[in-house]
């Protein structure tokens, strides 16, 4: 393995297996995209299952979805779009060598990610979990009362249980990705501030950015699917 030692501290290292920096960077990007395609394969079957059961039980899923607030989902969508924009800006500043602006954008992205998770927990998951409206043996008992409390007609509880199983599984997996994103962004900021030899150009920021845009992409589809279901 080649060393990261370099006579130019700010210059990216070209490893011996690559012809030039362009080929090396393309390899990084391609590797990241391979990972993202794997991630797509990870999420796609879940979308498929959700689409299938929505098709089959649309009327009940529509009633079950009434307990989700489209405004809360909309705020979270806006937050994630802003964070994606901030990441794109941070890559722009990294390419221009403006480290301070780059770091500010990364911190802003972390704040957005934390806000996303906080809103999801505070307004969606915790109220539902505290009333037993999550996949658990008492769901059939708890859900109709919870729906009545909110002035919403209750769906068939068995179908509603299926809906909320999918809801918690898919949005939970997405939230896990958001949380991992926060950790990765913090690690990136740490390495940039430490002037680590791992960070010699904009590529690490771009790689982390690609991951974050993917998290945003997943939410772009989740929002209309879960929160904006059309009336059957």
């Amino acid at each position, binding site marked *: 393995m080649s060393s990261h030692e370099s006579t130019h501290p700010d210059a990216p290292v*070209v490893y011996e297996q690559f012809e030039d920096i362009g080929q090396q960077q393309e390899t990084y990007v391609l590797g990241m995209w391979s990972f993202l395609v794997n991630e797509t394969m990870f*999420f796609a079957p879940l979308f498929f299952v959700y689409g299938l059961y929505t098709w089959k039980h649309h009327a009940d899923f529509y*009633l079950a979805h009434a307990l989700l607030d489209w405004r809360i989902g909309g705020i979270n969508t806006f937050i994630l779009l802003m964070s994606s*924009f901030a990441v794109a*800006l941070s890559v722009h500043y990294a390419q221009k060598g403006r480290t301070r602006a780059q770091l500010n954008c990364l911190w802003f992205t972390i704040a957005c990610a934390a806000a996303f998770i906080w809103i999801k927990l505070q307004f969606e998951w915790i109220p539902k979990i505290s009333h037993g409206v999550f996949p658990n043996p008492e769901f059939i008992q708890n859900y*109709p009362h919870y729906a*009545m409390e909110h002035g919403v007609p209750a769906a068939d509880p068995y179908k509603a249980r299926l809906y909320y199983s999918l809801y918690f599984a898919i949005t939970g997996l997405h939230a896990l990705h958001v949380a991992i994103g926060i950790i990765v962004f913090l690690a990136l900021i740490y390495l940039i501030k430490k002037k680590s030899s791992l960070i010699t150009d904009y590529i690490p920021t771009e790689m982390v950015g690609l991951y974050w*845009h993917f998290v945003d*992409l997943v939410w*772009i589809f989740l929002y209309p699917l879960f929160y904006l279901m059309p009336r059957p």
Partner: protein
Amino acid sequence: MATTHHEHHDDHGHDHAHHVIPISLLMKVFGGLIIGMALTVYAAIFGPKMPVQFMWLIAMLIAYAKAFLVVQYFMGVKYTTKLVKAFAYGGFFWATLLLIMLTDYGTRQWEPVPGWTPGEESALSRDLEIDRVPEDVQIHH
């Protein structure tokens, strides 16, 4: 032995110029995404009542348009090599191909699942207290 970008550039005299996307373009893309989100909400909540399949189609078309903007500009696929483009679009296209499986589910009867709903013929007992719908609750059918 590893060389630096500058050293290599000096040795061989060619370089890979990375594309810096201007902030003005990034802002336009962000604006497009916000408009897309507003359109999605309008169509679903405030828009005229349309057939449900058409509503789904509109929602998914807008979502795909937003995803296209993110992939092209924020993820910079528009400015990458053909190989990266093949991976990026191939992956998302592959995910869409999963929908073909829906044709199978849509054209055949589903196998009954024992224990799925009460009242249906089932090999599993439905006498569990936890699986009984409370009697004081009106279920919408």
